[in-house]
């Protein structure tokens, strides 16, 4: 059990508000690690800090043994951290296939590939086949040629997951993947995430407690910019500090 991501003493403020106020967190290779916390606890800020869209004011982020605290987003993607967004981020006027193909293409990081000017991209059958494989993996095999703006919300979320997976991340950050979904779509997404267990390290931010406790190997609870408890689902569920701070009387 080695830590893939090690966060220590991480801080970030906006004006007078310390949205991240000394976070220590380990994500271990192979686990599904859930991050929960009440609204405004700083979950999305923490995700931004890990993905590189925000830089910390203090503290360090170690990923696979090297310090990435000051790296750009695309450098972090190159090292193996890919995220999904709470509000779906896709290419609306492109087909599902082209959406995922662009994700596959992004992995070819040498300049010769991302700046390949002459050869038609449609001649690269391996890239297209791989994109099709990822789409079948998330249950969108029948929709490959539809435009992303024409499919349902749940399908777009699944598409975004396929795009994130197609970058072959070592650490996948999922920011509320079930946001805005109905019960059936949520269940489909939960099963998709469950199917990743064991082969994909995941840091999952999610509100739905049933799903968190079902999917996660470990759970960390973020309150007011700090992790107050970290441990197995059962440990966290029974922890008195968590019950008072977050879960209230619901459980």
């Amino acid at each position, binding site marked *: 059990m080695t830590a893939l991501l090690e966060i220590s003493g991480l801080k970030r403020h906006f004006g007078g508000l310390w949205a991240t106020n000394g976070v220590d967190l380990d994500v271990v290779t192979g686990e599904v690690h859930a991050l929960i916390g009440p609204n405004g606890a700083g979950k999305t800020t923490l995700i931004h800090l890990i993905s590189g869209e925000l830089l910390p004011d203090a503290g360090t982020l170690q990923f696979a043994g090297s310090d990435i605290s000051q790296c750009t987003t*695309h450098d972090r993607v190159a090292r193996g951290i890919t995220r999904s967004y709470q509000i779906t981020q896709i290419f609306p006027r492109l087909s599902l296939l082209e959406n995922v193909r662009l994700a596959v*293409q*992004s992995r070819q990081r040498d300049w010769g590939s991302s700046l390949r000017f002459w050869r038609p991209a449609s001649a690269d059958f391996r890239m297209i086949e791989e994109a099709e494989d990822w789409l079948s993996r998330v249950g969108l095999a029948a929709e490959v040629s539809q435009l992303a703006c024409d499919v349902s919300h749940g399908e777009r979320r699944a598409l975004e997951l396929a795009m994130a997976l197609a970058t072959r991340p070592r650490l996948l950050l999922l920011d509320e993947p079930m946001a805005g979904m109905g019960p059936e779509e949520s269940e489909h997404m939960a099963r998709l995430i469950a199917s990743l267990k064991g082969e994909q390290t995941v840091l999952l931010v999610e509100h739905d407690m049933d799903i968190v406790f079902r999917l996660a190997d470990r759970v960390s609870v973020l309150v007011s910019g700090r992790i107050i408890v970290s441990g197995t689902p059962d440990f966290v569920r029974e922890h008195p500090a968590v019950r008072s701070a977050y879960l209230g009387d619901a459980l």
Partner: protein
Amino acid sequence: MKPSHSGTLAETALLIAAVALPLLLQAFGEDYYIGFATRLLIFALAATGLNFIVGYGGMVAFGHAAFFGIGAYAVALLMNAGIFSAWITWPVAVAAAALAALLIGAASLRTRGVYFIMITLAFAQMIYYSVVSLEFAGGDDGLPLEQRSTLVPLDLADDATLYWVTLGLLAASLMALKRLAASRYGRALTGLRQNETRMEALGYPVQQIKLVCFVVGSAVAGLAGALLANQNGMASPSQLYWTQSGMLLVMVILGGVGQRFGGMLGAIALLGLEEVLGRITEHSHFYVGLALLAVVLYAPRGLAGLWGRQK
């Protein structure tokens, strides 16, 4: 996606007609119009470069005149220094425009939208005022060319030859644009236009991709500038002025933003309209304005969008 054969056929027919044009004009004794047609093609080339930046790269740049003018001045200055060969001066014109675009782009591309418009305009005006105040660049009067560039084995002093060379360069750049749009790089540009956040999150070096686009489009303007200096017989400050940038943008909008033939059609329509209207009325700008309004309102994809979707 199969290439449309009717499209290719139409393109070939158009090209043959364009190649034959000087011979027809000579046959009818209308030699003056060969120079006019060359001018159209040169502006078509410059506008095609701008369309690559605006339509394919999604960056509304308002300083294209700077690169257009740099190309012209490069040829004129080198000729003053005794270098006449187009084999040397035209590539230098392209490289100078590309280098200027690299520096301006690197400074400007952190901004977007209206800020990008203003900062590119500001840089272009800085270049305009610098050139106007330089004595060795001719100041307000511009820099006359002793003669046209030499392009062994061709004779550019012949109007028809300059026309054909320009036509060849325009056709080559339109072909390159077609390849580029379908390449991995072109696909990445499409992604960037639709969702920059997602491209960044997929790990694309967004800034570099945009910078390359900006430099390539500007380099094409540099080549067009070198050609215009030859056609006009001089490099003129007006070529660097912001109204020139505005005119090139109008051409792109008129012809079709992001349409492969948009820059070309816009240049031909705008300059053609000005030429025709200029003979009938003193208020040609008014009617050109009306035409632009009509296109924006009724054909938002421009003239190129009117017949079919070609990319």
